[in-house]
């Protein structure tokens, strides 16, 4: 199972980074979400995988998994939401202010819309 989880982490990272490199805001937001999943999963995996041993104290429990990474990831999930939300609104702001959803400033044709529209 460890190999499968490792592959999942790697794939989420790879697809997330690929989308981040796609020069537009929306793929960037999606890509960032995927990278967040990967990071959370990685942090979680640092507590090692274990099935059926939740960290709920119980006399009948056979054992417990490591609760600390879980606590870290729990807060990380909520913070990822906050970060995603900020980036989403920034993307919207750029779109409505400049009429452009490129993530690159460039001297070429693709970036001109941003500055041109702002002056208009």
């Amino acid at each position: 199972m460890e190999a499968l989880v490792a592959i999942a982490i790697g794939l989420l990272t790879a697809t997330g980074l690929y989308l981040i490199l796609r020069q537009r805001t929306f793929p960037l937001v999606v890509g960032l979400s995927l990278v967040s999943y990967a990071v959370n999963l990685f942090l979680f995996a640092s507590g090692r995988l274990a099935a059926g041993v939740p960290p709920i104290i119980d006399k009948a429990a056979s054992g417990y998994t490591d609760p600390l990474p879980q606590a870290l990831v729990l807060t990380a999930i909520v913070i990822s939401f906050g970060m995603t939300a900020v980036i989403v609104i920034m993307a919207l702001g750029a779109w409505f202010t400049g009429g452009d959803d490129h993530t690159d400033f460039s001297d070429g044709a693709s970036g001109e819309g941003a500055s041109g529209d702002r002056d208009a």
Partner: protein
Amino acid sequence: MTLALIAALPFLGAFLPALMLRAGRNASAASAFCVSALGFVLLCFQAPAVLRGEVVLASWQWLPALGLTLGFRLDGLGLLFAGLILGIGMLVILYARFYLAKSDPMGQFYTFLLLFQGAMTGIVLSDNILLLLVFWELTSLSSFLLIGFWSHLPAGRQGARMALAVTGGGGLALIGGMLILGQIAGSYDLSVILTKADLIQSSPLYLPALILILLGAFTKSAQFPFHFWLPHAMAAPTPVSAYLHSATMVKAGIFLMARLWPVLSGSPEWFWIVTGTGLATMLIGAKIAFFQNDLKALLAFSTVSHLGLITMLLGLGTPAAATVAMFHILNHATFKAALFLTAGIVDHETGTRDLARLGGLRRAMPLTFAIAAIASLSMAGVPPLNGFLSKEMMLEETLHAGYGPAWLLPALATFGALWSVAYSLRFLLHGFFGNPAKTPQKPHDPGIGLWAAPALLAGLVVLIGLLPMTSAAWLVNAAASATTGTVVAVKIAHWHGLTAALGMSLAALAGGAVLFALSPRLAALWNAAPRPDAKRIFDSAINGLARSATRLNDAAHDGSFTRATAIAIATITAAALCAFAGGSHAAGSRALLPVTPVPAIGWLLLVTAAALAAILHRNRLLSLLMVGVIGLILSVGFAWLSAPDLALTQITVEVVTVILMLLALHFLPKETPRESTTPRRIRDITLSGAAGLAIAALSYALMTRAPAFPPISAFHLAQSKPGAGGTNAVNTIIVDFRGYDTFGEIIVLGIAALIIFALTESLLAPGPASRRLAAFGASRPARAGDRHPLLMVMATRFLLPFALVVAVFIFLRGHNLPGGGFVAGLVVAIAYLMQYLASGLGWTETRQRIAFHSLIGAGVLVAGLTGAGAWLWGLPFLTSNYGYIHLWPLDAFEWATAAVFDLGVFLTVLGAVMLVLNSLGRLARRAGESVARTPYDLDMGEGL
């Protein structure tokens, strides 16, 4: 205590002159003078003990973890320097009052001067070398302000910048050297370091430390090849030149070498570097000084030369030579400050300080002439003045150097002294003798305010010259004893018999006179010969650096976000690869979890969804859908992998995130155009693929090994129930063990929500964004009429109370079973969101009583107050408590302060999530979303 006060006084008093300026320029100058004088008097009170050989120490802890203490010490060396700094400081303050023009901001001048004085005093009184570094940097900064005081002059600005670049750069090297020194000695306190000479000199890090420290000292003291900044610093007002460039700042490097002399000197490395540099500086400085026509430039290069002389003496490494160095520091400070102040008078009264335009001033300015004559003859080393005494002792010491050919050092030293005689004669004879020249202003002697200070210094020159044993030997003894760590009793005399030193001295005088006689011819040769222009070289070096920095910057970050990100990904992956290649690669030995069918199917779904999210990314809606799928599978996966809390959180956050992104997508284009070229796509696939592979390998390696250190979680599991009163270890960590982290986190979440609110406000404010929003609404095609379907409205209304009950349930059980404030907040948020979705923002908002901002604020307050409540019992912030309440007919009911804290978490999460989505909804309204008057759409128009 007094020591710290002496160092702190100039800083404390630095703002007095600026404030007192309202009461007039005299008051301003007087206040600055009083600050210096008070420091000097306090120093004098300490002097008797120091002269008895005691070391006065005072120390307070500052950052003990770093070895940084506010440690001050006063010994003979510190006394000599502090006396010079404060004493000459007073004279310069007096002089500047009459020197500065009416248009110069005097308050500012004295403030800078006192700041500088405080920094210098701090250096010479520091016992802790880290503290010394702080003061060292302060001198660089405050001297920058002083050199650039006339900021309207380009020369002033450039000179200040150059001085800062050179001395600041040396300061950086010094930091490195001092840190190494402290590491070797095991302490940053001089009191300890000075006792560890053997340990330091035998360390393999001795040479790096020595070179770095000397870089700091040489740049500060304008030693070759860093001497070029000092003449350019002459753009400062003359009182500053006199103070910084004769008596104080340039002596800081000398002080440092003297301070660390017991532990650094005596090795061949020390001798060759320090003596060699000193000698080179002495010769080069003296030669250049001789050819200067500007009085201040002549004095500046002569200062360079004399600093080289002192450096050379310290480099010899013998106690006797160090003693002569101390004596010469004192003598040089007196005659050089007097000369600078005289040059300032000449400049002030004649309007020029160009030797070619001056001449015959001795008749018009007899008083100034007398002072200049005494000081310059002392500089030339003419008996019986003090310059003669120390110069002859210096020549004597060069005969006893332990390294190199015996004749070389004395010969070079005599040669240097010869040039020194020559430029001193030029200063005196070309300026004050000969035919009176026509100067811009008619020359005359200045008022007492200007001549008092140099006259006093000239008096000291004569006094020390005539009665050295009475007037100076005690101070030199104290300073030399402190420098060398041995008891020194110096014998200063005018006549030692027919010694070699006397011969060398006479040769220097005679040779200097010959040189002076040849000066017109030599000057012609000098002007004809090409020579490097330090300023041009420096400027082009700086410009080159700036250009290449800009180029590098542009190449790495040219405004293209994807390029910067690609570079970052490549760099991080490459770094990881390097680390991997350098390590060992044994397979992990931990027992693995077997693969079972159901999780395997889930995994397959997740992998497919992730791949599709990338492959289908141009269709944004599909790509978003895949994100939702991944999130759902992750939460199921968390549940299976013994993390029920994570499963709950992930699934609720997922719902909110997808709604948020759907709302955003509403405004954005629904498709991403195909615009990357094939090579670019291949590049991106390669980069992200490599990074993904690396992360996968790292995760696998991590999961197949047992932790390198025993995890600290055993504590949390064991203490969860007895310590925090809850059986859910994850929840107790969040609200109790690591409550402070959670407190920080909800604050961050609240701030993120407020940022979003503020950004929305700015988008809605009149402007292009707002206009475009409105246009966006008008341009949209007609939509399906069923925006608020009856069925959905009814279903969400029905579900709301149930959802709220579930949230309360999740909240209350959180401490013992999966759940808690985070999840409960999200559940309530989702229940409310449903109402928004069903009936529209406008309709819902009119029925909302509590602003979401208040929820965030209340949440943070509740959490904070709960934490602060522990103070009432004298416990640290966020210490929790719990107990049981019996309420018939219910079971024993547990309460815990942690639950109140969790309530704060709940409120903040709820408020933040709602504020974020509400902000997006407001954008929609600006885009023409109509407000529903009824909770659901009733198609009544046609029916009636």
